[in-house]
């Protein structure tokens, strides 16, 4: 898609690049910058977290200044700029969830995984994060797995089951 070839080799798979091209096509031809959020998301799904090299690669791919991509990656809190475990678990503890067991869920996970918020288990399998309202409070307590999969009614039993499923 992009004719701008400042980066000599591709840091992303052909599928990811095709997905990014589909994002670019949604916006006016001179507004490829609009696709930066989608492009960073697609890159993060493939690589699990974003390195500075990756951010620069994406900026070049879209034909925008690296700083523009960097400021987006740091502003939105679902982008990970540091290595995270294989499964990033984000638990909502905002008030509506808290009234229906959000903290019980968070504490159970902390105890079961032996880590605190913003930590990763020694085997690199799980990272635990505290989240803000995910717009799913009716299903409280809720937990998000790897940014894209919402798990509802996460009671301790439901957590046991979910963790066993996550390889």
């Amino acid at each position, binding site marked *: 898609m992009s004719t701008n070839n400042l980066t000599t080799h591709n840091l992303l798979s052909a599928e990811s690049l095709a997905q990014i091209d589909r994002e670019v096509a*949604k*916006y*006016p031809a001179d*507004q490829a*910058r*609009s*696709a*930066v*959020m*989608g492009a*960073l*998301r697609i890159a993060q799904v493939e690589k699990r977290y974003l390195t500075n090299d990756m951010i620069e690669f994406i900026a070049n791919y879209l034909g*925008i200044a690296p700083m*523009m991509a960097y*400021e*987006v990656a740091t*502003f*939105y*809190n*679902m*982008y990970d700029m540091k290595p995270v475990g294989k499964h990033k678990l984000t638990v909502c*503890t*905002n*008030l*509506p*969830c*808290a*009234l*229906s067991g959000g903290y019980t869920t968070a504490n159970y996970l902390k105890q079961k995984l032996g880590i605190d918020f913003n930590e990763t288990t020694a085997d690199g399998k799980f990272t635990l994060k505290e*989240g*803000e*309202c*995910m*717009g*799913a*409070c*009716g*299903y*409280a307590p809720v937990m*998000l797995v790897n*940014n*894209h*999969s*919402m798990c*509802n009614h996460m009671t301790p039993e439901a957590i046991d089951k979910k963790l066993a499923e996550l390889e």
Partner: protein
Amino acid sequence: MTVYVKGVVFENVNFEDPNCWRLEEYVKRGGYAALKKIINDKITQDDIIADMKTSGLRGRGGAGFPTGLKWSFMPRSFPGQKYLVCNTDEGEPGTFKDLDIMVYNPHALIEGMIIGGYAMGITVGYNYIHGEVFEAYQRFEEALEEARAAGFLGDNILGSDFCFQLHGHHGYGAYICGEETALLESLEGKKGQPRFKPPFPASYGLYGKPTTINNTETFASVPYIIREGGQKFLELGKPNNGGTKLFSVSGHVNRPGNYEIPLGTPFSELLEMCGGMRDGKKLKAVIPGGSSAPVLPADVMMQCTMDYDSIAKAGSMLGSGAVIVMDETVCMVSALERLSYFYHEESCGQCTPCREGTGWLYRVVHRIANGEGRPEDLDLLSRVGDNIAGRTICALGDAAVFPVRGMLKHFRHEFEDLINKAQKAKGL
């Protein structure tokens, strides 16, 4: 988690059917009939906007601005590109209605946006979707494909010369992008920092072009209004509060969920629909319109009807329709502490009063909650609040202050008790 009762957005949706969201099912429910009517009967833009005004529909995103009036602001004859934007960045704590619209009835939103495009002479639209609900974004993309394949969306819709392109844009975690100008910045691929208003989006919006922004539920109400007429919609609710509305009920009720009911329904009836209070506990307080709305004590709330005017008269706001129900066991200081943390965390940091002030609010409430409150703290909270409210670029500043004021007004004694205990513990 929708417990449908009676309303225009979820009319006849069978939530048990995993295919209820599909175009085929939507059409069976009368979907896209409004669009067909407009195209076949060559209904004019003026007629549509007049019907929207008659309906009394008010924006469902929080501010409650009359939708017909907003649509009439769009400079229809403006020669360049204009944009239509849907705000599905649902992140106001307690709100989860737009998620269910996306999951169970996305075509109502799509049809509503196409009609909006037609009425305002707009050919391109975007739907900005909250980061945490990726599955809803995927569903929306699938629904768009269905609509394009059926000829409802794209070039020469239903054989007419009307064209409308619509795309999904997925956010990635920032409450502030729910504010309409922050959303536009984000859609342009920038940090979600609100713009100064004026100019308003109707004259300077996406890519600097005239833009109309509405909430998901607002758009999803449009097909009914066009199909059945604005007057019929208005009569479902009450004057100045037309139609039905989705209420997201969370907290200490037996059946949390979305309830679509006529505006003007007594709160006590809504509470009954939710199966009453969980574990038979007593109702203590309700935040009636999302976390930014001031809390109301049980006795006040039980006298309210669920509409813009009644809740405003009681000193709060209907906002997004998120009803957070709290029972007698809730410590109001801890509840406020969590909310104040949220606003501090989500401030975009552009304005000093909001960036610094939300930090002050959180730290002071936090120390009161943790038994380190000082006698001067309640005055301090009021003063910090006064220095934020009305002095910022966007309404997040106000949104951070309203819950503090509400709690201090109705539950001041709980704060005073904790402060007194802290003083005694120190031997003072």
